[in-house]
């Protein structure tokens, strides 16, 4: 659509601007402020320059958490995206099955995140959980409280359970928007099932898939509540992701300086990702 140039439009944006300034800009400035100061309590602050940033970038604790985050996000994407596409392809396209599937599949998306954690914490427990108890009965030694691998598996399955539906719904929306004529033309052209997927469904899903990949990447990169409830970051530090570490540092230990420095680094990573996201989004818009 052709848009007209009108700077008065700023007045329309003003409420949003004020609101977001209050809920984003001022807090962010506080963080920046802390990140360059040190305190020994009593509200006395000393200029610390970039010391905290130095410390943070040289701290094993930070790098390990970052690595865990990246690994986690990678596994999540590798599982949820193909699974989501596969389920969306097999979802009913009409009839009573459609609303039933949509409602049931969207259910996990609307459960408070700590309740998701609670559900899986309970579900996985060997003494009272269906999953844990069944595995134990089958003679599998599974205990997410003690074993880091089991903890990871639990957190990953929990995330698949929680978020795959988002990918499914996005892909499904992309699929139902494909006109029938494409499938008819493919039949006439003698295309195989795979060709239909490769040359019709996948290209038409490109846009929603892109959104799914980036959303899942970013949200899994910020994950906090669910693993916090289930594992509390343990055993050891094996499921301590950046957010968990950050909250521990800021709210738990009240190490404002390092926490603030870490926040800013974390935020810059996110900013970079957002920029990639935005660029890719707008350029794919321009192609259509």
């Amino acid at each position: 659509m052709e848009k007209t140039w009108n700077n008065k439009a700023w007045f329309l944006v003003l409420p949003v601007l004020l609101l977001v300034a209050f809920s984003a800009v001022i807090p962010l400035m506080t963080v920046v402020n802390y990140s360059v100061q040190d305190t020994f309590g009593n509200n006395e602050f000393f200029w610390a320059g970039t010391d905290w940033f130095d410390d943070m970038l040289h701290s094993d604790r930070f790098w390990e958490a970052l690595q865990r985050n990246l690994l986690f996000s990678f596994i999540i994407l590798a599982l949820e995206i193909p699974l989501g596409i596969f389920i969306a392809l097999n979802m009913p396209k009409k009839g009573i099955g459609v609303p039933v599937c949509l409602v049931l599949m969207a259910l996990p998306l609307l459960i408070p995140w700590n309740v998701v954690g609670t559900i899986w914490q309970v579900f996985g427990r060997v003494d009272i959980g269906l999953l844990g108890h069944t595995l134990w009965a089958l003679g599998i030694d599974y205990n997410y409280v003690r074993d880091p691998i089991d903890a990871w598996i639990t957190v990953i399955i929990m995330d698949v359970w929680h978020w795959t539906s988002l990918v499914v719904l996005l892909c499904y929306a992309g699929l139902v928007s494909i006109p029938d004529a494409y499938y008819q033309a493919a039949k006439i052209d003698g295309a195989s099932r795979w060709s239909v997927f490769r040359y019709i469904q996948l290209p038409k899903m490109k846009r929603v898939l892109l959104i799914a990949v980036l959303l899942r990447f970013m949200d899994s990169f910020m994950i906090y509540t669910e693993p916090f409830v289930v594992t509390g970051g343990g055993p050891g530090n094996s499921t301590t992701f950046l957010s968990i570490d950050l909250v521990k540092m800021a709210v738990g230990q009240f190490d404002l300086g390092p926490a603030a420095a870490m926040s800013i680094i974390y935020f810059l990573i996110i900013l970079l990702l957002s920029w990639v996201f935005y660029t890719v989004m707008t350029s794919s818009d321009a192609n259509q």
Partner: protein
Amino acid sequence: MASPMKYKPAGNFSWLVSTIYIIFLLLPIYWLINMSFKENAEITGTFSLWPQNPTLRNYTVIFTDPSWYSGYINSIIYVVMNTVISVLAALPAAYAFSRYRFLGDKHLFFWLLTNRMAPPAVFALPFFQLYSAFGLIDTHIAVALAHCLFNVPLAVWILEGFMSGVPKEIDETAYIDGYSFPRFFVRIFMPLIASGIGVAAFFCFMFSWVELLLARTLTTTAAKPISAIMTRTVSAAGMDWGVLAAAGVLTIVPGALVIYFVRNYIAKGFALGRV
């Protein structure tokens, strides 16, 4: 006329895929519901696939203890406040983005978007201090405002998508007919994007309802959300699993109701790729 040929997913096992997936989704939820109808002795003592002595005791505890049920009321209050604030503020902004070009529009849009991506963990502490300074700690409005951080950009984004689908000629015709901007916006434009407003409200509701970190940080007692109250089920007698499960089940109910009412819009909202 409607095309007679619908694409059929390959094979006859396709229903099986959805079914297995839905069973996978529902099993943990079923387990929670199952537990919520059991006595604690049964939960910890015996392992049973369904309640042997079904009891409503856990729900009774929640509905009779103000410190429990007020959690639900608190959550709903700030979620509704946040949804209303987010959508109201986003409406004019989305209109500006969908209709006009103005100085710094692209940068502004990008900046709004980054707030959607910002990790709440980064904001937890500064929020606490900011709202302390304003004396807003432990009020509903504090949480509602904090959630605007990610919900306002989201609402702007969704609404902009819907508004761009409305031809500009409609605006022009209305102005020619002598409508003032506010009258045009409320009387003509908003009904046209009603489903968009519904979708935006749904997503605001959803993200505000599921968020815990900020909600917990900004409240102590008076406005404490249910999800934070759930963390205190450890008592002298040990973990009160039954009440925990019942509280969990009750947090799923509002979400389930909301999904059911907007089920026809979900696919549309997702289709716009605006989440």
